[in-house]
């Protein structure tokens, strides 16, 4: 793997070929906010919070750093007026679903996001997919998945698998940025396999 030099927020950063901008930034101690990223999982590119500005051949583009590959002499700006404006909007959109989630509140403070900008529809889930992907990629169980699409999309446990696997695992619980998952799990447990919940 050859070494690549790029510039992030004015700092020279060394990266390896095949790395993403987010990984390169993290390795240099430069922070970029994320919600759906997890180092053990394939990049998802879903929350779009890690959006940054890059300059390629004189053109400035907005790209999502968790999937954008590093390149020689790439110039990256992790903050700009536009980047901040978009992150603020993304946070406000998500806060409508999980207004009291701790992680979102910390980010909201940083970006001046107003949790009351949009009418609240507290569903807690912000579709980061961490539980779904962790269960599929790390645990290879697929006990939890997405169902339906668009604004009707939600996560759901597959009872047959969940009743067998989840009780002794629960590794996805702490991954959830809004803690919706635990509620969902407990609900499924109560509804689908009440007998095992007592043991």
């Amino acid at each position, binding site marked *: 793997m050859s070494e690549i030099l790029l510039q992030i927020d004015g700092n020279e950063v060394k990266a390896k070929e095949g790395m993403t901008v987010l990984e390169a930034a993290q390795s240099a101690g430069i922070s970029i906010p994320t919600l759906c990223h997890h180092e053990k999982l394939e*990049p*998802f*590119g*879903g*929350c*779009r*919070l890690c*959006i940054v500005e890059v300059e390629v051949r004189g053109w400035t583009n*907005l*790209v*999502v750093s*968790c*999937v*954008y*590959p590093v390149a020689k002499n790439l110039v990256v700006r992790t903050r700009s007026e*536009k980047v901040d*404006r*978009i992150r603020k*909007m*993304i946070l406000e*959109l*998500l806060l*409508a*679903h999980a207004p009291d989630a701790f992680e979102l509140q910390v980010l909201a403070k940083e970006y001046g996001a107003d949790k009351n900008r*949009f*009418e609240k529809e507290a569903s807690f889930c*912000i*579709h980061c997919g961490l539980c779904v992907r962790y269960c599929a990629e790390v645990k290879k169980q697929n006990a939890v998945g*997405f169902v*339906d*699409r*668009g*604004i*009707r*999309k939600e996560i759901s446990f597959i009872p047959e698998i969940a009743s067998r696997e989840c009780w002794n695992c629960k590794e996805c619980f702490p991954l959830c940025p809004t803690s919706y998952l635990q509620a969902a799990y407990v609900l499924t447990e109560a509804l689908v396999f009440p007998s095992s919940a007592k043991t």
Partner: protein
Amino acid sequence: MSRINSPSELEEFRKGILLKRDPNKPCITLCSGSACHASGSGEVAASLEAEIEKQGLRDKVDIRRTGCHGFCERGPIIVIHPDEICYFQIKPEDVPDIISQTIMEKKVIERLLYTDPVTKEKIIHESEIPFYKNQKRLVFGSNGSIDPKSIDDYLAIGGYSALAKAFSEMSAEAVLGEVKKSNLRGRGGGGFPAGRKWEGSRNAPEPIKYVIVNADEGDPGAYMDRALLEGNPHAILEGLTLGAYAIGAHEGYIYVRQEYPLAVENVHIAIRQAEAYGFLGKNILGSGFDFKVIVHQGAGAFVCGESTALMTALEGRAGEPRPKYVRSNIVGLWGRPSVLNNVETWANVPLIINKGADWFTQFGTEGSKGTKIFSLVGKITNTGLVEVPMGTHLRDIIFKIGGGIPGGRKFKAVQTGGPSGGCIPEELLDLEVGFDELTKAGSMMGSGGMIVLDEDTCMVDVSRYFIEFLTDESCGKCTPCREGLRQMLKILTNITEGKGREGDIELLEALSETAIEASLCALGKSAPNPFLSTLRYFRNEYEAHIREKRCPALSCKELIAYHIDPAKCQACMICFKKCPAEAIVGGKNKIHVVDQEKCTKCGTCFEACPPRFSAVQKISGEPVPSPIPEEERMITRKGKEK
């Protein structure tokens, strides 16, 4: 049927087909595409068969059930060759006359002809009808002359000669070069130059490559790809095979939505026939080139028209776009170089190879070459599919070919490019259609949908409708699209219901920016277009809804009221009887009044009131006048005084 093993064998075979066909024998072609099927062409076909049998004409006349002719407004359509006599809106009961008069006695039946709406003249031949006369049907024209289930019909019009030419005279590089030189741009939405896409795949180091047909046409009201795949499937297969040869692919996929059963059926038949003849499979036409085609039926998700989502769906997973910044012509289906073009793009390829890039580039504008098929729907007299050279003025498409707006209404805008396209207002009607021209006007070419809107259409509601469609079709993976559209739809719905607030336009603009800049795929990035383009040209309508609670087009239910003008009402009882909500108060000789509490704003009274009275009015943005006092409501009619 035995295989055809070389280009020269193909030419011999073709000669044989043509020799067996008498050009002077009458042939009745009947449009049997999905649209005409819906208007009864199946029944017409059955009675044609029966009548010919009955009259003992089996050997004297041919019947050919073709694909869509395009003039769907007037279907089912019959064209009788070789005289090209054109009959419209045929019913089974017309069939005996057609056989006994036109076929037997060579007499034209006046009542079945097209009547020019302006000159009132009857027109016999297809080529003289304004709808057809002003088109240039390079790609779509063959639809009317072949039975899509007959490969011999396709061969009779020169089918597979481009493939034979490529194999006998052209290297793969030369085929690619010709397509590059033709400047053919993708007809599916993005308008990306096909040749450059192909070249990328060809040059990619990975040896296994794929070619894919995107037949996941999902725009509301658009059906040109369906008509091509149903009506001329071999042209798509030939184009696809040429593409495969050019880039070095040996496997191709047709991703077709399962809501197109006739297209699925016809393409399956075509593949079987092409395999039997040796136009697909091993060692095609003796060239040593192998290529097979597999049909995959999609479940009709709009997002699967997006290239990476389509490929993900082909791989058997949920159709969601990929987040990677890498082109699918390099890393596509199963991670391999994959050229994806839509149906119409592939259908252009045999023409380019047969006639050359120089021929092709004589049609169109600087940036957009060739022709484009548009599906012309909405408030338009001649609903149908039209093919025109790029650069044709919008005005000509809508008025010369489309015949303008029915019912004497005024044109307001044309929505082009599908749900994520935009609305183009009257002042831009002289725009030349082309990829870049439409984008500059705030809309896009998309796959060629054109929805004509008249003065009764509310532009805020149009924008709400398309945002609703896109919200429904968003895959839900990324925040700006899923959540942004959810909020945009809420705000737009509020505006159309009179609940708009100051600041709504600015909030919609901010949500649009986030969707455009931060969405994962083209669906989200272009989703705000319906809002942005209507705001650009019809901002006053948004402001009227928000500030005055008024719908200028008198269309938004929550913002209008029906009122009966007491000075005009003749107490005729028509609306009184028809109102389904029993919201009309009145009686015989007693002026009618709409009970606003009961009124459901269905518009029945407005439609029912005789035009000579025109007493029912729609009002918006102003209070409903209070009803006249009970004692003044009686009408005394002349000569009927009690």
